[in-house]
């Protein structure tokens, strides 16, 4: 449990807020490049409580600035291009395109360097980007991503799919070199030991599921400060996902799927996800207003939630059901929430540093160091219990050595 004052401090991100000032020291995914089709020169962007417009100049230069907006606009209001009017004299924010995403920097001073993470250094052919709206505060959306225990319950499938049908989906692949689908590992071993280490970029989170026969399932995931995670999706792909605040009570997950093997089948990945979302605001078709298509019969026999096979919907239900901003004065964190506790300490430390003007104390704000940050390693492996550390490392090195682009670390 935390105080209401602390909950406000770590969740609210509008202009002038303390957590908002931390976010504004980092590049933020502002839009997908898919959203700005070739003929367009203006795209609405609602980010960090600001009403903005992405502008593409005649020479192709991209900038982000404030737009004329009515105070009662819906949080994800998406005006037609003809109705977008930049405000003259408003701050102009720099924009950089990276593998399907326009990143913007809304802070003061020079923007930080981009780390050389896999999602940024892989060629465009090996990265697919998409996003979706969750109607809740960004922090509860991030916290589910740094909670390795929930996958054993929230995403439990009472029967396993054939891993051959798993392309582009989370948890459906086989674990490393075994014939066990990840879904089975998660179901049968629901009490992971969780180790959390602070890194240059945020946190490394290792969850260990000790299995029968002297084996351990090792899942390595990461928190990338302030709002992203980097996690394995399959043997072929990892997910780097930001939880980008629209305002205090809405956020987008913006994901870069990065392949270490074949070029990403973007048409298939896009089609799978467009079937679940409506444009232009990328709102999920299953949502609070239709009870996420909850089916009690399915909950009894097929899935833990009764909300279908798409794990994104499970996560969305979990975080939206907490309310627009989770009331953390009533929470009871356990040992399974170790990474959440650690992350909040990082965020509070960052808030303090920004308040004192000590920006170089924030993760990834030292220019020369940040650009040389590589990885982070994200993978699932099953190994002999006395050798899990080496096995996890070796598994990733094998994948990276065979990668058609330079994924060496």
């Amino acid at each position, binding site marked *: 449990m935390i105080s209401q004052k602390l909950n406000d401090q770590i969740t609210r991100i509008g202009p002038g807020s303390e957590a908002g000032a931390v976010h504004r020291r980092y590049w933020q995914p502002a839009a997908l490049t898919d959203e700005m089709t070739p003929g367009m020169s203006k795209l609405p962007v609602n980010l960090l409580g600001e009403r903005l417009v992405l502008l593409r100049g005649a020479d192709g230069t991209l900038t982000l600035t404030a737009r004329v907006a009515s105070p009662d606009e819906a949080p994800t209001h998406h005006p037609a291009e003809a109705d977008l009017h930049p405000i003259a004299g408003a701050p102009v924010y720099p924009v950089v395109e990276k593998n399907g995403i326009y990143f913007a920097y809304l802070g003061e001073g020079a923007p930080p360097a981009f780390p050389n993470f896999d999602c940024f250094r892989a060629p465009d052919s090996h990265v697919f980007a998409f996003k979706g709206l969750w109607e809740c505060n960004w922090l*509860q959306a991030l*916290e589910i991503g740094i909670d390795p*225990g*929930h996958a*054993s*319950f*929230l995403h439990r499938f009472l029967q396993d799919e054939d891993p051959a049908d798993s392309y582009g989906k989370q948890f459906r692949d086989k674990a490393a070199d075994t014939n066990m689908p990840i879904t089975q590992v998660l179901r049968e071993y*629901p*009490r*992971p*030991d969780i180790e959390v280490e602070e890194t240059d970029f945020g946190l490394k989170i290792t969850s260990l599921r000790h299995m029968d026969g002297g084996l351990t399932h090792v899942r390595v995931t990461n928190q990338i400060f302030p709002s992203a995670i980097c996690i394995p999706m399959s043997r072929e792909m990892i997910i780097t996902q930001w939880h980008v605040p629209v305002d205090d009570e809405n956020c987008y997950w913006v994901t870069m799927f990065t392949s270490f093997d074949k070029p990403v089948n973007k048409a298939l990945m896009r089609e799978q996800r467009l079937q679940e979302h409506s444009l232009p605001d990328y709102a999920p078709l299953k949502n609070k207003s239709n*009870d*996420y298509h*909850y089916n*009690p*019969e399915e*909950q009894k026999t097929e899935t*833990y*939630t*009764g*909300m279908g096979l798409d794990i994104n919907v*499970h996560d969305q*239900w*979990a975080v939206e*059901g*907490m*309310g627009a901003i*989770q*009331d953390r004065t*009533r*929470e*009871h*964190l*356990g*040992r*399974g*929430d170790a990474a959440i506790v650690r992350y909040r300490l990082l965020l509070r430390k960052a808030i303090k540093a920004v308040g004192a003007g000590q920006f170089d104390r924030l993760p990834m704000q030292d220019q020369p160091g940040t650009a040389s940050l590589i990885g982070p390693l994200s993978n699932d492996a099953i190994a002999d219990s006395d050798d899990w550390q080496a096995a996890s490392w070796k598994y990733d090195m094998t994948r990276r050595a065979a990668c058609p682009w330079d994924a060496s670390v």
Partner: protein
Amino acid sequence: MTVATQDASPPTTWIQIAQSSDLDGPRPVVPVSAMGQALVLFRDEEGELGLIGRHCPHRGADLCFGRHENNGLRCPFHGWHFDRNGKCTEQPAEPADSTMYQTIKLPSYPVSEQDGAIFAWFGEGAAPALTAAPATA
């Protein structure tokens, strides 16, 4: 069902919160808003009613979508299980030696059923016997 919001003085009568028929389906679990609180009403496998807090005390997930099993409700987020008195009986994601569940309890209210209607006691002290024609809020 939504009934009176909380005012200064606690009620001195049982308050109707639902119809028995609301729980007729194969999954007898319904949301209830009463006295300014978000609650969930369910019938357990012994046929007894439970009226407990709607949000899981762990991280706030919505127990109206809970799994109706093991004579109670189980949160789909991390499997925490609650009985009709709001007592947490299991935390299957926590380490096996954890006894944290013994300290976790959701708010819960006495519930009684009469003539096809379900009533809850939000008053002070022990609930009196449910007599004919209590107040409908």
